[in-house]
């Protein structure tokens, strides 16, 4: 078996580097013809050249059947970089893996040219090459996936923070515009920021605006009530506003209610009520001519 001997792949790539590179680039451009807005040809050439220059020494010194060996570290590192950058650029996983898989055709062509006199060696070398490239291709997909998940996790964190601002409407009046589904993690964040703001501003009234909450089911109602109860324990009164007609009707059918919590249709109704509670009034000034 050739696996025990030294494979000729590295040697063949070195001697045909230029033609392999050109064919490979051509394959990539065909595969990515629709995505030329995402990456330029010169950039692609640069990446391909660099990968080949790392690939050959790894083939020379390392095992061709095990890419976890330290000799492959530079290649994997480089693929890591490429995959992550392509995930951010908006490539699909298969487009990213194509970077490696499109090397097969040019490489196999060269192997066939060089080894056409010995069918057995040719088959062995082809097998080694295909297994190796499959592994590297799958590696890019794995890294791609991880980068994507990282992006999603970051966005989730961003959204969690973005979606729970507490704003001061007036001296003693806070407002919390809630947006999206109020799950238990969200409720926890809202409760913490609200309670802290109550302490910081010494407010007596907090308005929870649910205009941006698409539906109110029993869990969301329960979570809202928990928030109200916590604010009450700290001496603040809560008003729930932004209840749209379809939400009100659905809540009635569902059989949930906000108990003795004051509810209003709009934020301005809630603000008017809050002004009355803290003995403030908005008056229209008479114009003096």
């Amino acid at each position, binding site marked *: 078996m050739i696996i025990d001997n030294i494979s000729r792949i590295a040697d063949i790539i070195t001697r045909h580097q230029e033609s392999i590179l050109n064919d490979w680039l051509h394959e990539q451009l065909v595969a990515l013809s629709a995505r030329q807005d995402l990456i330029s040809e010169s950039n692609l050439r640069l990446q391909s050249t660099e990968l080949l220059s790392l690939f050959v020494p790894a083939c020379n010194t390392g095992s061709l059947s095990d890419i976890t060996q330290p000799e492959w570290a530079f290649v994997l590192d480089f693929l890591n970089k490429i995959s992550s950058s392509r995930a951010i650029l908006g490539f699909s996983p298969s487009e990213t893996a194509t970077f490696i898989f499109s090397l097969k055709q040019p490489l196999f062509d060269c192997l066939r040219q060089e080894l056409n006199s010995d069918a057995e060696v040719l088959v062995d070398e082809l097998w080694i090459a295909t297994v190796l490239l499959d592994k590297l291709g799958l590696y890019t997909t794995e890294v791609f996936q991880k980068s994507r998940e990282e992006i999603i996790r970051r966005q989730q964190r961003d959204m969690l923070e973005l979606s729970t601002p507490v704003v001061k409407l007036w001296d003693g009046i806070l407002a919390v515009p809630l947006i999206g589904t109020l799950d238990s993690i969200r409720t926890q964040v809202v409760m913490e920021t609200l309670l802290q703001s109550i302490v910081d501003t010494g407010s007596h009234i907090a308005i929870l605006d649910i205009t941006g909450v698409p539906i109110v089911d*029993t*869990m969301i109602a329960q979570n809202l009530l928990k928030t109200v109860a916590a604010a009450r324990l700290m001496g603040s009164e809560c008003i729930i506003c932004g209840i749209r007609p379809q939400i009100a*009707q659905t809540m009635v059918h569902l*059989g949930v209610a906000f108990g003795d919590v004051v509810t209003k249709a709009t934020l301005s109704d809630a603000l008017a009520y809050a002004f009355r509670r803290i003995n403030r009034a908005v008056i229209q000034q008479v114009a003096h001519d």
Partner: protein
Amino acid sequence: MSVSSKVLPMRTEEDLMIVRQTVKAWMIEQEFSLLEQTKLVTAISEIGRNALVYGGGGSALLEQLLENCRVGIRVTIEDQGPGIADIEQALQDAYSTGNGLGFGLSGAKRLVMDFDICSKPGQGTRIKMTVWN
């Protein structure tokens, strides 16, 4: 008659959100009123969460229906959880084995036109909800 259908997983809160959004998009397409949209989506939220919390997750079958020129949507949510021993009791308002408000199951039933529950202890729960426009 089912015109088109789709099976979606129901394993996480995100899955539940995707089911809700898919149904909502279908209902907008079929010109259901905003109230009907909100009612069905809320019912899905209740039943879906039951499947997640008590049933350990399952799946949702979404179907677009057409019968005598009337369009409808049917959502079947299934789990392989412990099942419900006494359906009558579970359908009572303010009854909960967990720490919920106890309005989920009975409330969801009131939110849709046709509600069919099928459950046996140890064999999971299947709930079919249908609305017509």
